[in-house]
């Protein structure tokens, strides 16, 4: 009898263990689906459910906050998704939060991500409808990735062609990239640059010393720059002289301007000669007449010299000269 009782006890423990584990498992599953705790309902209307199913998770700022309980089509372009959310997130969920359909990982189940807005709004109420955001569909991401891969392929093909052209042409770019002598020359150049830099550094040091000396009033430049009173006086005299010269030059220029103006207007003999054509013509005639008169006068004088009356006079004159 005692043996039978022990058997019954063992069997009872065995069966109860199975039942307890089953109930515990069912409770944990229900707990994950928010079936036991206090919950509230919210809705969101999407244009495309993107494969969302009843029982999919709902996350609020990355935390599991509830599950999708119902998906129904309300018209040809609107799908209303009903979600039950844990009451503990209600104080933090605002009416302007945005719900998006996403994927758990790259290949995981669909889920609804609720993201809070940066603008403060009223706390959500049971039965409110959230704003729907664009979904991050893996298929779309893969499509874009495929396009990008195509572009990369095209670019790599172009680069390959360019590289082949460079190698085939053996031009300057080839020399820069592949000619080993360029590298040695480059080394020499770098050494020269280094030496030049060293010289420039020395020069800078010397210049800095010189500037220091100048500042302290040493040397010619220092005395010039530092003896401000003498320099100022000399500069002032020079400026005064330049100013005076400029004034004189201006007066001369003004006088010349007036003379030229008068000449242009025909005032004075020169003006008449320059501007009056009649007078110029008369003057020309006069000169011509004068020229012929002089010629005739010379002829007359020659005749006089040859005349017996005055011949002796002219001979005496010649001898005295």
């Amino acid at each position, binding site marked *: 009898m005692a043996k039978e009782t022990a058997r*019954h006890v063992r*069997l009872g423990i*065995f*069966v109860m*263990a199975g039942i307890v*584990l089953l109930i515990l498992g069912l409770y944990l*599953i229900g707990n994950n689906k928010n079936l036991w705790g206090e919950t509230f309902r919210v809705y969101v209307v999407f244009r495309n459910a993107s494969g969302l199913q009843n029982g999919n998770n709902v996350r609020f700022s990355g935390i599991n906050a509830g599950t999708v309980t119902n998906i129904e089509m309300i018209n040809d372009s609107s799908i209303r998704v009903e979600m039950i959310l844990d009451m503990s997130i209600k104080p933090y969920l605002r009416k302007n939060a945005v719900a998006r359909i996403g994927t758990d990982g790259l290949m995981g189940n669909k889920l609804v991500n609720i993201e809070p807005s940066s603008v403060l709004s009223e706390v959500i109420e049971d039965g409110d409808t959230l704003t729907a955001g664009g979904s991050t569909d893996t298929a779309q991401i893969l499509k874009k990735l495929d396009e990008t891969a195509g572009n990369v392929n095209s670019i790599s093909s172009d680069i390959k062609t360019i590289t082949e052209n460079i190698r085939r042409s053996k031009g300057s770019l080839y020399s820069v990239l592949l000619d080993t002598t360029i590298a040695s020359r480059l080394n020499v150049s770098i050494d020269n640059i280094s030496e030049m830099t060293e010289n420039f550094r020395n020069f800078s040091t010397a210049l800095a010393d010189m500037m220091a000396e100048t500042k302290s009033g040493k040397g010619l430049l220092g005395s010039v720059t530092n003896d401000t009173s003498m320099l100022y006086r000399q500069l002032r005299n020079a400026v005064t002289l330049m100013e005076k010269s400029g004034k004189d030059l201006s007066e001369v220029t003004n006088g010349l301007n007036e003379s030229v103006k008068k000449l242009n207007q025909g005032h004075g003999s020169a003006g008449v000669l320059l501007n009056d054509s009649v007078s110029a013509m008369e003057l020309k005639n006069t000169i011509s007449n004068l020229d012929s008169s002089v010629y005739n006068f010379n002829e007359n004088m020659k005749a006089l010299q040859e005349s017996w009356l005055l011949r002796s006079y002219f001979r005496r004159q010649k001898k005295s000269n």
Partner: protein
Amino acid sequence: MAIDSDPNSPGAWSRVFGGMRKFFAEAGDISAFAIRFFREILFPPYEFREVIRQSYEIGYKSFSLVGITAFIIGLVLTLQSRPTLVEFGAEAWLPAMVGISIIREIGPVITALICAGKIGSGIGAELGSMRVTEQIDAMEVSGTNPFKYIVVSRMVATTVMVPVLVILGDTIALYGSFIAVKLKGAVSLKLFLSQVFESIDYGDVIPSIVKSVFFGFAIGLTGCFKGYYTKKGTAGVGRSANSAVVIGSLLIFIIDLIAVQITQFFGIF
């Protein structure tokens, strides 16, 4: 069954038809046996003490075998699946994947097959021995209903105990899986269980339990049927035990197939 080289010979066809007739006759006998079980279970007297005794023999005494097998299955399944998931960078999916595999399919089927091997053969051999030693006939003569006492109690015990063994086996297999995950990486039991229970649903657990009830019933039915109708002396006892295991295992796979179709039809998975 070997068929003659000439398929048109009357002997070959008669053997094919004979085999088919035998198969359908046996299927009909098993159906009638099952109907008799339901008829007997509804009416008193109820053999509770015998049911409890058989439950202890069938369920409790099979637990160690089921537990060890389940632990190894969970451990090995995880270790074998891990490298593939690691290649895809999806190591974090390991608990969820193993959890679903164990609870939906591997747990119930492996446990049922073990029970078919251990319990089915045991019942077949025990009832066969009782038949060939005329103990069943003696019970009928003494006025006791041997079907109610021997068959109903065993079939009820297998139908109840196999689901319990499946639940315990699933739990142990998940623990084995956790050990395997823990061997390769730092994952806490809480995180492991959280990942497992996040991935499974009532649609995974309830069909699995319902399925295991049918598995238990099938194991009890084949074991009892083959043992109850054992013929041809002690050699028949061995054949009954063997047939109970073979037919029981086959029925488990057929029930599993039907269960998958039903759950998919109702959109539970």
